[in-house]
């Protein structure tokens, strides 16, 4: 009985182990699985690496990836995506799209706290996100 009291009183004078979240951020581990993002093409960092093949669409267990469209620009062998819609509300971050992508154009982002007021807030167009990131960097 008394041993238990000893444990709690000792714990009381030990430093706290929690971190005060909004004020104090923890490092996100490099393999953290946020929602997926498009990576830049290996040869040309200005455009995204997605070739709009649709393998991820077919492999997604939850049908979260939709409306992939691409165009073939002049002087290039393969298509480049112009639209890539991810419905994050049904995504379970399994990573099958990341693994099956033939051009290694998909990776997990470190976006750990997406928040919104309606479902549509989580319908991302990854091509647009990619362009946004490119501009900000």
């Amino acid at each position, binding site marked *: *009985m008394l*041993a*238990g009291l*000893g*444990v*709690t009183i000792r*714990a009381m004078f030990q430093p706290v*182990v929690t971190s005060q979240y909004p004020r104090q951020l923890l490092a996100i*581990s*490099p*393999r*953290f*699985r946020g929602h997926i993002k498009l990576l830049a093409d290996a040869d040309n960092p200005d455009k995204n690496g997605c070739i709009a093949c649709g393998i991820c669409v077919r*492999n*997604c*267990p939850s049908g979260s990836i939709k409306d992939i469209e691409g165009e073939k620009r002049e002087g290039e062998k393969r298509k480049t995506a112009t639209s890539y819609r991810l419905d994050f509300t049904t995504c*379970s*971050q*399994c*990573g*099958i799209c990341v*693994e*099956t992508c033939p051009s290694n154009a998909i990776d*997990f982002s470190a976006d750990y706290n997406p928040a919104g007021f309606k479902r549509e807030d989580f319908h991302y167009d990854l091509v647009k996100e990619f362009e946004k990131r490119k501009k900000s960097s």
Partner: protein
Amino acid sequence: MVEKIKAELGAALGGVEIRETEYRERGYHLSCEASPGELLKAARFFDECGFYLAAIVCVDYREYLELVYIFANHSALCKTKVTLKLDPAKPAAPTLSAIFDCAYWHEREIREFYGVLFDGHPNLTYLFLHEGIDAYPLRKEQVLLADEDKKALGAFRPEEGEDTFFVNLGPQHPSTHGVLRVVLKMDGEYIQSAEPVLGYLHRMHEKMAENRSYLQFLPNPSRMDYLGAMSFNLGHVTAVERLCGIAVPDRANCVRVIATELNRISSHLLWLGAYLADLGALTPFLFVFDDREQINDVLEAVTGSRLTYCYFRFGGLYNDVDEAFIAGTKAFIERMRGRFGLYEKLVGGNVIFINRTRGIGVIEKERARKYAVSGPVLRGAGIAMDMRKAEPCAAYSEMDFDIPVGTRGDALDMYRVRVREMGTALDIIEQALARLPDGPVMAEKVPKKLKPPKGDLYHTVETPRGELGIYIVSDESDRPYRMKWRVPSFSNLMIFPELARGNLLADAVAILGSLDLVIPEIDR
């Protein structure tokens, strides 16, 4: 053992052909096809031989329905599959619930998903599904429910008696950890009967499995048991690997063991905290979360997730572990070894805790067998049965560890078994770390589209809650024809009504907690 059972079963059934099967491929040693009468004879035979009924599976082969009964033994590895063919137009079978208590719920499940009528079953009412289902969901062709079927299925209505009343323990109740509802018929503070009502988290994972490829089903198992996600992930990949005959590199096997055992500790820790919270002590809950965070940090660095892991792949791992993982795991082992003393002082040595749990919810060995309970509950009852030893997958066969067992089978024993299991898990991790070989973590030449050869497999792994059995029927396509998940909490919950009867309300909470249930796993 197998030879002996084959001969004796053959004699008991008289003239039924009993085939020996390749255990490595099928997961069972013997199989036979029985008629309803022979099935009952076989069940009685296995009951007398001290076997338990591991699972009942129904498979719809379109031309006929097949009931698959898996009988297994706690002390020796000898599994038998008994099948019974049914007419799909009017499926009916004899009930085994009088012989094996665990059949009671399995048969209810099959009744509601396939429409099989079990003659003599005392209560064939809805188990998971409630109002609003028009067809039997797992039939391959649409079979509508007749009105009398609906009426029969919806027959469960709690009735208050003269001196009794009903108390709902759940579904929104703090002590059921998830959404389990138990209807308690109370006489004052004493429980006259308890009836669990399931299905609040039912998502029909088994149907989902039939509609997606093996690869696409990967994220699902970890959503069934979110606390032992790694074990479920392991069960799924090892089952499919066994079916397809994929060999996994040594390094991957070792990492699988480490990750699964880390997850087991984290699951047991959470159980410890939640159980104490059930009993009214809230501080251990926060202490265990402190420890759990360390595990989560270590696992997050390699798997990318903290709870619903999806780390193993057919033929290996999602990605390799690094030095930081090994260092982190070693640091955790060091830390955890020092924490057991603290828990012993705070919980195990506390007179109030001991008085609350000693002699409560006693499970005798015989009852444990009849209800086919497994995992720490079974070991708490004194039966040293662990799938990691009995049917080792991954690198478990190379690990040296002992199986902690209880003596009285009460809630206190369950506590002690789980705490000691955390210790053995640490031992296993240390051994696996010591012999972690270099090399690839992914088998070469794993086809992109897995198309296992035709056949079935009953594969088991030990999850933190007990025996997980996966029964897969493959028809050579890239999707399982049938995938049945025999989940440990389902069997463990079945014994609850009997344990609760005649006890106080407070004891019911203590017993329910000692079974360590994860409701989404039961509901699937």
